[in-house]
């Protein structure tokens, strides 16, 4: 229990009449890499967004590091400092340079001085292979470069856990590798990660556990080789057939 990074119990989320998450139980241990798969509309993004309260759960409990995220009394801004998030469409701040994107949060939240933040930004940009883009505007970057900046930006707050929502699905195929490379590096360094992705290669290689969701419930979960090679559930099989045959 003490080792649980993410502890979701009986999570329900509805948008109006649309009951999207139907009693989800979802745990992630420290240093674990969990890959979330499932058909479109099954609620993967919604679950991920409930983890840092970009969506308010309708009922149920979400704890991160023992902090009750679903409780409105919890200081959510403080909690989010420890939860990095990477979006499908990057969402780099268009009014700022690459460097400023990475420096903004630590400086504004009083974590680092301007100089220290700049030094950290350069270091992080080097890690993602973009040290020469420090002064560039986001608009001048390719999709893959943007996503790597977005990862650097999330890492700048020094989070304990990183959430990825289809980080490579908006990218041209030749860009995907660079982004996955950065994510693998992170995983190897022991970062706790929850990744929604259709990249089955990444899942097989890096995931400690694969969780298959459909229609708002967790249908099946287990080690990647177990889920991919010997799926127990018919819906898992059907889904994997489709994805792998594409």
């Amino acid at each position, binding site marked *: 229990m003490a080792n649980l990074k993410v502890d979701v119990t009986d999570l329900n989320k509805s948008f109006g009449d649309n009951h999207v998450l139907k009693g989800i139980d979802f745990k992630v241990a420290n240093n674990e890499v969990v890959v979330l798969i499932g058909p479109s509309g099954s609620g993967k993004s919604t679950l991920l967004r409930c983890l840092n309260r970009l969506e308010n759960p309708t009922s149920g409990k979400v704890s991160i590091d023992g902090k009750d995220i679903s409780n409105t009394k919890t200081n959510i801004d403080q909690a989010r*400092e420890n939860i990095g998030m990477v979006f499908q469409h990057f*969402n780099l701040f268009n*009014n700022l340079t690459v460097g400023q994107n990475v420096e903004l949060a630590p400086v504004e939240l009083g974590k680092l001085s301007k100089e220290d933040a700049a030094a950290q930004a350069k270091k992080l940009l080097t890690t993602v292979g973009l040290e020469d883009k420090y002064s560039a505007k986001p608009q001048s970057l390719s999709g893959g470069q943007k996503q790597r900046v977005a990862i650097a*930006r999330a890492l700048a707050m020094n989070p304990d856990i990183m959430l990825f929502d289809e980080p490579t699905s908006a990218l041209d195929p030749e860009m995907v590798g660079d982004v996955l490379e950065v994510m693998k590096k992170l995983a190897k360094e022991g970062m706790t990660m929850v990744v929604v992705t259709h990249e089955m290669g990444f899942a097989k290689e890096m995931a400690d556990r694969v969780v298959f969701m459909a229609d708002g419930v967790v249908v099946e979960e287990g080690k990647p080789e177990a889920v991919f090679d010997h799926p127990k559930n018919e819906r898992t099989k059907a889904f994997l057939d489709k994805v792998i045959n594409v």
Partner: protein
Amino acid sequence: MKIRLKLFFALFFATLGMFAWHAPQVHAATTYTIGTDVTFPPFVYANSNNKYVGIDMELIRSIAKEEGFKVNIKPLGFNAAVQSLSSGQIDGVIAGMTITDERKQTLNFSTPYYESGIVMAVAPSSKITSLKGLKGKTVAVKTGTQGATYANSIKDKYGFKIVTFDDSDNVYNDVKTGNSAACFDDSAVLNYGVKTGLGLKIVTKPTDVGQYGFAVKKGQNQKLLKMFNAGLAKLKKNGKYDQIIKKYTGKAATTKTSKSNSEGSTFFGLLRQNQKAILSGILETLKLTIVSIICATIFGILVGLLGVLPNKFARGISTTIVYIFRGLPLLVLALFIYNGVPSLTGTKIPAFVAGIITLTLNEGAYTAAFVKGGIEAVDIGQMEAARSLGLPFGKAMGKVILPQGIKIMIPSFINQFIITLKDTSILSIIGILELTQTGKIIIARNLEGFKVWAIIAVIYLLIITLLTLLSKWVERRIND
């Protein structure tokens, strides 16, 4: 962000306060604020030096001198003057106002100071010679005057329609252009006009004879009323009264005025002759525009931001403010604030402050709408990314969303600045001597409607051009 909001508020109220602060001084000691209509020669008009003169003006000033009080003349226009009187914004009205039973319900009148009847005037080429000739025709009158009341009382009998205008000049022009067949007005006024080259002819004898009186709000300023009566009696006794009447209805006065008219009937002549009045009109318009733009922008941004807050109550307030003040016609809002509110609360609001509040609320509502729209036009992902880093709403708004939203809003801001400038002209209704009101007053004297309005129009275009250039320059600096 919070500090900046507070600063905004402080600035906003400080600006308003600065103008409100002047208010008590106007009404200090024995100075009375007297409303009038300066488009009503020979009773009240602005002479070629743009001093308010005429029978009413000389009377009130001479009486004030006799009785030892001071007057502050407000050129409000007849309607606004009477309204401002009943709302307590001013102390008295002298504007060639006929004493009627209806008016006595809400006003106390002095002893009459002049007697005048209603006559009908037509275009020189008109074949109409009596009321009978008006069947099926249109007749022009000035709002709220005795001429209007008279026309209304006989319109069914003689079968004509009525159009009303706020200024005498528009009444006469409507007859001259042939839109209206005739107009009704006080005989003294029309006689004066005919003599000074109005270009109309009088075709009936004075009827419906009425008496002019100085008015205060019923039950108020009784001391002022007593002083007026006492002073008038003194002037009648010492011959000053006759002197004044003769000065404005005798031959000498009218020929002198018509001469000064002909001096300045070219564009440049008119400009030169009215230089001072026009310049101070421009200045007032600029002052109104600048202060309004500042206040409306601050107010608009605050209300706009309220509209994107993650709080239903705040958004509700914002939507309601925008709905009300965008929905109200500017004219109604101006009259409501200047005349309506004081009659309820009993506090006077200087016209300039009322004007600023009016524009701040109206233009601010439009500003709020596009500020909200501009913020909402920024991709929602920007806010989500900022919040997911742990940035609080205010910081995310200030550092990420607003800088992007403002770029989207800039063209709307420039547009709104120009609209604000144009909308200041509507404030002429509450007697602010800005450019439009200045034009009205000049025309009331010299009847050069076309040329004076052309001059005023060109001046507005010039100011708008300057404002646009300035805004574009600022836009370029922001976008760099």
